[in-house]
């Protein structure tokens, strides 16, 4: 855990401009508290399939006005991420795992590599299967609500990874048409604090980086029966290259501007968001609009530019953390899950 915490505190995406605007923030916060005591109207519970938060009209107005001036409630700018902690290899029974805490959002991803038969249309490639579980979250996400959100996230992940060269699927093939590696990616949403798509994509990339697939050899007998032999050395494994794996950047439209990494409150104020998946080289591999509102074409163009910029810096920071953790190797101290 220490490795992850070091990475987090080294300040990647640390967007606290507290020093500069401290004076103004305090004044606003006091006024806000007074306003909340005076008139708290329940207005528009935004239950858009995610955990809902109750905001009064005054609070929404406060957030919207702040965003117009590039100042968000916690002091970040419109393009800053919250402080994030990434740790890999947290679950020992999996082939690869990762845990990401982005502000209050907590995601755990476990990848298990199992042998299966390749798909009919692509006989010389392995494939990935995504499964997302949201039920441990809040009472309204139990049962149907959680299942819908889970399938929504899984479909988004399928679309993001549908680009052929995001993961090298040919390296997952053992015997064309007969055996291949299937990577079952299981995502657990431990806590939803806004911006779950970004956090999930970061966790999936970190888990894929951490995945170790054992090397197998195929022995063929005289009769033609094939036997699969696992190598004896537990450290002899295939690692996946995650250079082309995209990360999702969610841009939420609030008022006339868009923000990156919205908290639950900011999501309640935004009517439409654009999900863009960006690779480390700045190529956009998928786009999707979510939300009940509509977007102006000009905003979409601006959001794509912002998404590309933010995505590239996200990839650089994430790769740095992953490489550092890798170099620590076995000397990394193991702290408990809540450490």
């Amino acid at each position, binding site marked *: 855990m220490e490795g992850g915490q070091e990475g987090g505190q080294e300040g990647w995406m640390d967007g606290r401009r507290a020093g500069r605007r401290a004076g103004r923030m305090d004044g606003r916060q006091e006024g806000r508290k007074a306003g909340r005591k005076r008139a708290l109207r329940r207005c528009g*519970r935004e239950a858009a399939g995610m955990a809902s938060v109750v905001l009064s009209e005054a609070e929404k107005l406060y957030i919207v006005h702040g965003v117009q001036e590039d100042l968000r409630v916690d002091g970040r700018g419109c393009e800053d991420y919250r402080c994030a902690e990434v740790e890999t290899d947290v679950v020992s029974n999996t082939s690869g795992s990762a845990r990401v805490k982005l502000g209050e959002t907590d995601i755990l991803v476990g990848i298990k590599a199992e042998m299966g038969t390749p798909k*009919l*249309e692509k006989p010389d490639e392995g494939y990935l299967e995504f499964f997302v579980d949201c039920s441990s979250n809040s009472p309204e996400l139990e049962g149907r609500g959680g299942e819908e959100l889970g*399938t*929504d996230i899984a*479909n988004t992940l399928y*679309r*993001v990874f*549908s*680009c*052929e*060269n995001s993961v090298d699927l040919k390296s997952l093939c053992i015997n064309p048409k007969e055996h291949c590696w299937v990577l079952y990616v299981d995502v657990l949403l431990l806590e939803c604090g806004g911006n779950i798509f970004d956090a999930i994509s970061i966790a999936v990339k970190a888990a894929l980086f951490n995945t170790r697939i054992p090397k197998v050899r195929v022995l063929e007998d005289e009769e033609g029966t094939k036997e699969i032999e696992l190598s004896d050395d537990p450290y002899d494994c295939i690692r996946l290259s995650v250079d082309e794996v*995209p990360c999702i950047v969610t841009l939420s439209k609030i008022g006339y501007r868009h923000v990156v990494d919205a908290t639950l409150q900011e999501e309640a104020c935004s009517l*439409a968001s*654009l999900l863009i998946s960006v*690779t480390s080289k*700045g*190529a*956009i*591999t*998928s*786009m*999707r*609009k*979510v*939300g*009940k*509102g*509509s*977007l*102006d*074409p000009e905003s*979409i*163009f601006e959001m*794509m*530019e912002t*998404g*590309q910029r933010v995505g590239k810096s996200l990839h650089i920071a994430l790769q740095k953390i992953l490489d550092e953790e890798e170099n620590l190797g076995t000397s990394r101290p193991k702290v408990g899950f809540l450490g």
Partner: protein
Amino acid sequence: MPLDHRRLRGPEESQPPTLWAAAAAEDEEDEEGAGAAARDPCALRPLFARAGLLSQAQGSAYVELGSGTKVLCAAWGPREAAEPGPGRLICEFRRAPFAGRGARGRPGAAAEREAEREAAAALREALEPAVRLGRYPRARLAVSALLLQDGGSALAAAVSAAALALADAGVEMYDLAVGCALCRPPAPAASWMLQPAEPEERRAAARLTLALLPALNQVSAVLGGGRGGPPEDWAQALRLGLDGCHRQYPVLRQSLLRAAQRRRSTPPS
């Protein structure tokens, strides 16, 4: 479509013969592909739209594209719902089992249902900005789209048909949602093409579906994926798609007008 248990469903795993006749079929397809490469990428296929054809539904519409995509859509609304709160739009998207060119998908299969649910969610995202849900508190509006034949750009045609059906049912809307699909062939420096046919869509390296509210110039849905490119590529594709939507808008409006005239001239039976 409800599952008919009396009918023999055949073996669990069935594969179409075209999969095994791949070698011969690919030569033919290459020739087709070469011929189609001369197609103008900005050309819109002929569109046929008719509203008000089902007698049992409050609103209905049928959209057919020149490439062979046929979508039938029916709309009902508003009905009283038990949950309090603003009105809800419930969308359903179904494919006929014979709709696709490849193997017949078994109607109850999990993969089919997943794809249908995803398409229904996309349909809902495209239509919600267009419908004035605030005018129907505590109500449910239902839209059901049926894809009879998939000739490419199925989701885009379904969006247009669903918007027409809702308007035909008399639901208050800000504007009609017009759908348009684009794709980019796998050749390295290829440009985006409007309204691909089914073989082009299958071989495409990247696909994009848009829904636009033309009178307000607001994009109500964007759904795209595939081999990446810089944002300028996708921006160019978006502009092409928006232009395509604007060009289709008059056809849809005309069909609504004709349906209203037809309804007025024939007395209710």
